[in-house]
């Protein structure tokens, strides 16, 4: 895929910003042994509320959820930042964000204990970030700016 210079800068900036957000969120959780998603999950709403509450109340499931969440965020962030396995990272990130969205959907009539930082109707920032990852997935840039370039160079994939 051929990008204009501006287009490439835009894609790389978007990728790095999203990666930054994922990586930092993930590492903060990894580094805090007391961190748990329990309160967040208990505060779920929408049609999958029961499933998320079940995750929160089942301590074995919760441990797995917490581990996958913290390390998932970190590794997805790392892949976007370094530009390696970027499409897989973007796809996994979209899945993770979909879970966040489904646990706290911005549907009218649902209220959460934890306050939101704005006013949303169906589309919220989680969903916007999910769509940002969709762009990153659809328009790869890691083979130009990122570690994937080394493979690209070896296999002589044209820019």
């Amino acid at each position, binding site marked *: 895929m051929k990008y204009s210079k501006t287009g490439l800068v835009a894609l*790389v900036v978007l990728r*790095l910003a999203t*990666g*930054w957000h994922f*990586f*930092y969120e993930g*590492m*903060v959780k990894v*580094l*805090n042994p*007391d*961190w748990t998603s*329990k*309160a*967040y999950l*208990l*505060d779920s709403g929408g049609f999958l509320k029961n499933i998320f*509450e079940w995750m929160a*109340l089942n301590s074995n499931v919760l441990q797995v959820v917490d581990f996958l969440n913290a390390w998932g965020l970190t590794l997805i962030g790392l892949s976007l*930042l*370094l*530009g390696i396995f970027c499409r897989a990272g973007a796809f996994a990130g979209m899945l993770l964000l979909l879970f966040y969205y489904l646990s706290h959907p911005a549907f009218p009539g649902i209220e959460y*204990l*934890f*306050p939101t930082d704005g006013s949303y109707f169906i589309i919220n920032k989680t969903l916007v970030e999910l769509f940002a990852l969709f762009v990153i997935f659809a328009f790869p840039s890691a083979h*130009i*700016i*990122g*570690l*994937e*370039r*080394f493979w690209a*160079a*070896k296999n002589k994939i044209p820019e």
Partner: protein
Amino acid sequence: MKKDEQKDKKGISRRDVLAGLASLPVLGALGYGLFLHTSERNKYKSGLLKGVKPVLPSGIPPLVEGPVLRLGVVGSGGRGMYIMKALGFVRPERIDDWEARAATDKYWRDYLDEFMAQEQLNVRVTAVCDVFGKHAAQGIAAGSNLYRNGQSGEMADAPRRFLTYQELCASPDVDAVIVATPDHLHVPVALEAARNGKHVYCEKPLSWTVEETFEARKVVRDTGIVFQLGHQGRQTESYQVAKSLIEQDVIGKISLIEVCTNRNDPNGAWVYDIDPEANENTIDWKQFIGPAPWHDFSLERFFRWRCWWDYSTGLSGDLFTHEYDALNQILGLGIPHSAMASGGIYFYKDGRTVPDVLNMAFEYPERDLTLLYSATLSSEKNRGKSIMAHDAWMELDETLTVYLDRSSTRYKDQIEQGLLEPNKPIFSYVPGQDKIDAITTPTEKYFAGRGLLYTYRDGKAVDTTHLHLREWLNCIRLNNGTKPSCDIDQAFEEAITAHMGTISYHEKRRTFWDAINERIV
């Protein structure tokens, strides 16, 4: 052209290397950010927990081994049946009902599971006494259900119904008596039991009059029975944690404590349903009246007895005592120097004589603090318990949260260094957790401030009444002078304090406790 030739030779050009590693500096920046975050957090946490070693509840105490204890229940109405459930005895109809609900409703599934998981306390209910035939029958049905079965299941021997509490207390088939009568009969029944050598678990408040409070203390002490007052709050984990934090001077000098009651429904205001089967033939009215002034038969007075001073101790005895006993447990307050009360019947103008709004101030000059109680039966604004001190304040319910005071002396340096944030929660304890958290993330701060009750949702909370009864039974079985946590001395302090408030309300003046002569003046 030259570059392309180079690339063909080596595969990877210098340009490739630069573009490939272009984002690495970003990782460096993030690493620095994480370093800042972690060191802030660690400083904050160490600043908080330095030197503080909260005593955490050690779980459910094991049951002391011993012979089966035979219990007599006096009063098998609402509270009496609840106590029997906490002992493991429920009417078979109820079990069937719960099972039917549990089939479709998770709440009832958890409720039923929790009850079934409750440990057997090695007791039998051998005697029941209630002045209302239907209540006596339900007590007998529950008492027979040793194996927690539905109606088609096996039952154990039915408890014997006694028509008077005197006969029940005299029965050789009873080792200990549960008193769950209206307030005006607590002491008469408890003392009848004690004089017959039976151990007593008595619902709160201890007494209806000041005089009988002294008599109760004397008889319980003289007979040496094991006495427990039914303040199950003694088993609330967060109170035990609060006590240990305060003893370690985490919040500093306490000057004011505010406790409250807020209810806003007829049931909470003691307007209970009147049973259609109740009438002069099914209720032993004379026995119900007991020491109270005579009044003609009244279904309203029988079922809603809490609304009349003739049988009740009002907000002070009925609900303030819960709050008082919690604080007496945490701070060892004892009897106050003085009490001042005011209030009125402002919402429930239904013929009741006890107020539905009550405010009381108790002074403890030797402790340099005031205990404030404020209650209404017509607003549900939840105010919780607040213990206000110079360095921090503590908010207490099932959960515990400590907020740092901006002008604290003790934490001045840490606040100036930015290690601690004033007016924010710094400690939280949620029942079921095995640790106290120093609160660090914004999410934790938010939820700690709101006191989200994990254990309620968990459905794993152990009934505090069960624990309170268990403690009493353990003391009986130990038989070595070990006293339960809410023994007769604690009960005495509870009752006198409540009476001081009530007398102040009636006489519209400040009442004082003459500690030397032990009397209210």
